[in-house]
């Protein structure tokens, strides 16, 4: 018991242990509520809800009516849980940087490559997130919603997505890191 408690307090688990935990959560989610874990869809649900309220005509299309129904969906609530789950994980290992100085740009490797400026971190995160969300919209899911949740149902889409993701990810890393790759 003590061993387990100490393991929970560790900052970094073996990825195999964490992977088993996520796999079990994925099984229970399908079993209990017949839903898949996913992250990127929540943005479209929320955007659709706000859009329908502000400019109903522009959002009255196939996509927002049938593929991504607007509203506070299962996925939106899941994402709220993910936020607090991540915080809980950091809190148990004593690495929660919420509100602390330098928390917005705390990654040593990031600072070495791009510089110590906090605004750079925000700008790059914002641009990258737009790319991510747009791509997830095209592919029909993100790393969690398509690659993991689709993969565990053996959907071919998931494996195509993983192939593409790694191909361009490696290329982008090559371009960013150049000599340091």
């Amino acid at each position, binding site marked *: 018991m003590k061993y387990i408690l100490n393991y929970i307090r*560790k900052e*970094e688990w073996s*990825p*195999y242990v964490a*992977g088993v*935990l*996520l*796999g*079990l*959560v*994925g099984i*229970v*989610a*399908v*079993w209990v*509520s*017949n*839903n*898949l874990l996913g992250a990127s869809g929540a943005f479209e649900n929320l955007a659709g809800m706000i859009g329908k309220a502000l400019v109903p005509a522009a959002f009255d299309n196939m996509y927002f009516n049938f593929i991504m129904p607007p509203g506070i969906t*299962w996925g939106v*609530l*899941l*994402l709220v*849980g*993910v*936020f*607090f*789950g*991540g915080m*809980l*994980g*950091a809190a148990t290992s004593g690495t929660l940087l919420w509100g602390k100085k330098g928390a917005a740009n705390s*990654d040593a*490797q990031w600072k070495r490559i791009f510089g110590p400026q906090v605004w750079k971190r925000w700008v790059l995160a914002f641009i990258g*997130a*737009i*790319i*991510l969300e747009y*791509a*997830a919209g*095209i*592919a029909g*899911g993100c790393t*969690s*919603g398509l690659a*993991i949740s689709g993969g*565990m*149902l*053996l959907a*071919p*889409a998931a494996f*195509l*997505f993983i192939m*593409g993701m790694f*191909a*361009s990810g*490696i290329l*982008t*890393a090559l371009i*960013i890191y150049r000599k340091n790759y």
Partner: protein
Amino acid sequence: MTNIVLPLIFGVFFGFSLNKAGLTKYNKIVNVFRFTDLAVLKFMMTALVVAMSGLYALRGLGLLTFPNVPATYIVGNLVGGLIFGVGMALTGY
């Protein structure tokens, strides 16, 4: 009620496992593309193998039915993945 509480609980466990695997860190995500730290790959594949064997076993026993399987449209999935990788390597999401 369960429709509100359950996703929140699943989400907490989801976020917790992501955090403990280190996937909330920029260096973990980008280093998998540099082949210097394969934690992301190990984590993803372990989760996949555990979940797929569990789900197919439970379906074989007739205990559950699968939800809508994500649609396969080859060009869309592949192009989406290609753009996604750029964002992933850039932000460390």
